[in-house]
């Protein structure tokens, strides 16, 4: 202001002087946060939103459904009257009943709980294990990499379902927990390979070297500097893994190796109902379609996340 006043004084023509526009915080454009950018990008993908909405609906359906609708007794057999077994849709049983008169809607909801919990929990365990193995292999390379990756190859070389059938027949007790551990114990291999690949590429980045120049420890470089940069592919892989694990659980339960009756799961519902497909097709279609749409939704969300988490985003 001083300068412009002085200039004004010396200026005989009394011309208006435009002051400089200093950059003030108010003028600096407010920027979206990283999370907001990712969210906005995800919201642009219609298929992914439909998938996400369906998943939210499925979670509400399976976990709140039983209490809200009152169909909360999946194991009660309504055999007092013959009209209650293998019944079609009605107000009392919106999706009918099965051969021993159990409420299909209640079983679908509670079975969904089992399937979703098994899918999510086994994904979580598999990802944690896979990230651990993959990051050590990729970061240290050399002999560590060789040992860990050959171990992974060995696991991958065994026929997956055959192994699961044998192991579940001998070692598990048919509870959801044992199925979760079983699926996770063999589901980590792909994420380990993926994480190893990411670490191999990212450890050569200059910011890793820069982190080393300020004296960061290996552990902190691995998990503070490199891992967040590999988060995109890992999250996508995790989402897809949930769908795959739900299928695996269903296959196991369908063949009678997974979750044992009377605990309901979508797979075991199909397994039990397949003999009755010509009598009451609804008994197969309900759990079958639920599996189909849930897994499809997880895959759509995974695809949406893949685009949203693209590391080369430059927009603000």
């Amino acid at each position, binding site marked *: 202001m001083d300068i412009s006043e002085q200039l004004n004084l010396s200026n005989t023509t009394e011309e208006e002087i435009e002051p400089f526009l200093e950059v003030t915080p108010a003028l600096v454009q407010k920027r979206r946060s990283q999370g907001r950018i990712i969210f906005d990008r995800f919201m642009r993908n219609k298929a992914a939103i439909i998938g996400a909405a369906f998943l939210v609906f499925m979670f509400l359906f399976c976990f709140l459904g039983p209490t809200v609708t009152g169909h909360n007794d999946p194991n009660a057999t309504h055999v007092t009257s013959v009209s209650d077994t293998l019944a079609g849709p009605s107000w009392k049983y919106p999706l009918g009943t099965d051969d021993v008169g159990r409420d299909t809607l209640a079983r679908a909801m509670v079975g969904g709980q089992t399937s979703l919990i098994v899918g999510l929990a086994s994904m979580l365990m598999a990802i944690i294990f896979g990230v651990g193995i993959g990051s050590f292999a990729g970061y240290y390379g050399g002999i560590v990499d060789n040992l860990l990756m050959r171990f992974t190859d060995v696991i991958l070389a065994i026929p997956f379902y055959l192994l699961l059938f044998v192991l579940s027949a001998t070692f598990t007790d048919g509870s959801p927990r044992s199925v979760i551990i079983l699926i996770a114990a063999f589901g980590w291999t792909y994420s380990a390979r993926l994480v190893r690949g990411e670490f191999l590429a990212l450890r050569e980045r200059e910011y890793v070297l820069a982190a*080393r120049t300020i004296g960061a420890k290996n552990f*902190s470089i691995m998990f503070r500097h490199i891992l967040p940069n590999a988060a995109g592919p890992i999250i996508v892989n995790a989402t897809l893994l949930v769908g795959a694990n739900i299928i695996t659980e269903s296959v196991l339960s369908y063949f009678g190796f997974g979750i044992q009756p009377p605990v309901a799961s979508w797979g075991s519902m199909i397994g039990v109902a397949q003999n009755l497909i010509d009598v009451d097709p609804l008994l197969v279609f309900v759990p079958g379609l639920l599996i189909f749409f849930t897994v499809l939704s997880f895959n759509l969300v995974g695809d949406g996340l893949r685009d949203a988490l693209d590391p080369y985003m430059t927009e603000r």
Partner: protein
Amino acid sequence: MGEHLLEVQDLKLYFKVKAGYVHAVNGVSFSVKPGERVGVVGESGCGKSVTALSIMRLIPQPPGEYIGGSVLFEDEDLLSLPESQMRRIRGSKIGMIFQDPMTCLNPTMTVGAQIAEGLRIHLKVSKDEAMKRAISLLDQVGIPDAARRINSYPHQFSGGMRQRVMIAIALACNPKLLIADEPTTALDVTVQAQILELINGVCKEFGTAVILITHDLGVVAGMTDRVVVMYAGKVVETAPTDELFANPRHPYTLGLLDSVPRLDEQRTSMLRTIEGAPPDLVHPPAGCPFMPRCAFARAICRTMPSLDPLPGNSAHRKACWVDVTDPREQAYAEKRRRARLEAMQAAIALAADETAQPAS
């Protein structure tokens, strides 16, 4: 020995490759006093960056191998320290800035967290305290509205601002020595000047010694107290900056200075370049590595001269047999240069003839 902060003695670092060893750093010696600004110049691939990284022990081994020499920092040999102790020195005693600020910042961490990380590792301060210091550092390197920008991610910054952040990270723990590896190469000219001014100002304020690695002689002239000229993994000349520019004594230094265009020269005159390329460092020449390209070369150059001080000026050292100020030597060099030029023109004319012949 106590007067030097850093003393590199006959450092040799080779890279093992299929064909043998790349003699990337081949007997480099120089020293840095506390608060001194030393420039290291030379053309691409002559071992400047590798020297810097090997001082910090950041060359991956394998393929890198320390063959010999020592790096004394505060009278402690960095090459014999265990890795855990070395980690304590990196960042707290020696900071480093790299060439490309675009790739040196972690895209998933806020700049504040990246500045605070060094503080938390070395000074063991609390998270809040580290953040507070990070804000004042960011302010010191000239980023406006630091309190708010501290939570920004690197991609929200421009190149120049990122380099400022890098400087803040490197200087966070107030190191005794800052190694700047071509800090301005990736920036445009206006920003270059600002960044150099900043490095200069901040280092003077903190009393930090600087090793400035660059191939820009203009930067060296304005920024440093002393210059080390490197060629093919060797130091060929070192002198106080003013002395080096006024009185270059090594043919390579002469060549470097001659190849910079000057405003006070006639525009039409040809730039005098250094013909040829640096030698293959897998099979470095036994004698002076510059001999194949040197106009002053003589038979004696087949043995490597030592880096000796000039008579009467112990601060100025050169590794050359020839006294380039001797008019007889200059006439000899001019003769050789002209002969080479003529041979080249003859070869071009011959090639032109040969291509023209089939047409006729």
